[in-house]
C-alpha cells in the first residue's frame, strides 16, 4: 500500500497491510510531530506534497527495497495537511522472513523518502512564527544521483 492522505493515519491498518504467513518479522515505523526541537517548541506541522510525483517516487523506492531485501510486504503512508502534536505524519511497514531485513528495509525507506520524495514540512512554532523546512546544511544528492540510485529507479 502506498498512500498520501489528509486523514489521520491508522497505524494498525498499515501494520496489518503487511501481514503474511511467510513473514517472521514486521517493522512499523511511525514518525510523529515532536513538541521540541532543541529548545524550540512546535505547536503543529503542515505537510505539502507534489502528489503524483511523490507516489511515483515512493513506488520506485519500494521497488528498489524489494530488489535489495527479501521483502514479503511493504507499505508507505504519508499524511499531508495539518498534523497536530503526537500525530503520525508517516508510517512505513515492512514484513520479511527474518528480522534484520525488516529493520534495514524500513530504515532505508524512511531515509530515502526524506531525501527523494517531494513532500515538504512547515513548522508552526510556539512563538507564532512559521517556517517551511528546506534543509541546506547537508548537501542533497544531485538530481542525477537521484535517478541513478543503485538498483535503478
Amino acid at each position: 500500500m502506498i498512500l498520501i492522505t489528509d486523514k489521520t493515519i491508522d497505524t494498525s491498518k498499515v501494520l496489518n497491510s503487511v501481514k503474511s504467513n511467510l513473514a517472521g518479522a514486521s517493522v512499523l515505523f511511525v514518525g510523529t510531530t515532536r513538541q521540541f526541537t532543541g529548545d524550540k517548541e512546535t505547536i503543529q506541522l503542515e505537510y505539502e506534497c507534489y502528489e503524483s510525483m511523490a507516489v511515483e517516487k515512493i513506488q520506485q523506492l519500494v521497488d528498489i527495497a524489494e530488489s535489495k531485501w527479501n521483502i514479503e510486504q511493504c507499505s508507505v503512508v504519508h499524511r499531508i495537511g495539518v498534523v497536530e502534536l503526537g500525530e503520525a505524519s508517516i508510517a512505513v511497514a515492512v514484513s520479511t522472513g527474518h528480522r534484520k531485513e525488516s529493520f534495514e528495509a524500513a530504515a532505508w525507506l524512511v531515509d530515502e523518502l526524506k531525501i527523494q520524495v517531494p513532500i515538504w514540512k512547515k513548522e508552526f512554532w510556539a512563538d507564532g512564527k512559521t517556517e517551511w523546512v528546506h534543509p541546506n546544511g547537508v548537501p542533497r544528492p544531485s538530481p542525477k544521483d537521484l535517478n541513478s540510485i543503485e538498483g535503478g529507479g
Partner: protein
Amino acid sequence: MNIKIKLFAAAREMNDTGELTLDVPVGCVVKEMKRMVSDDYPNMSELIMRSAVSLNREFATDESVVCEGDEIALIPPVSGG
C-alpha cells in the same frame, strides 16, 4: 514556447501561486530555465539555487531539455517524513 512551472512550499508561498508561466526558447535546458525564473522572480533566487527541477515527475539534470507540454516543477529541498 510557453511552459508552466509548478511551485511548492516556500516557493509557492513567496509568489502566492502554485504555478508560473514562462516564455522560454525552444531547446532551453533546465539550467537556463532556472536562471530565467530567478531573473523574473528575484525573491526566489536563493531558493531556486538550492532547488531541483522535475520533468514529468522525474528529477532532471541541469542539461535536460525542457519540452513544450512537459510537466515541470521546481522542487525545493524536501522535508517529508
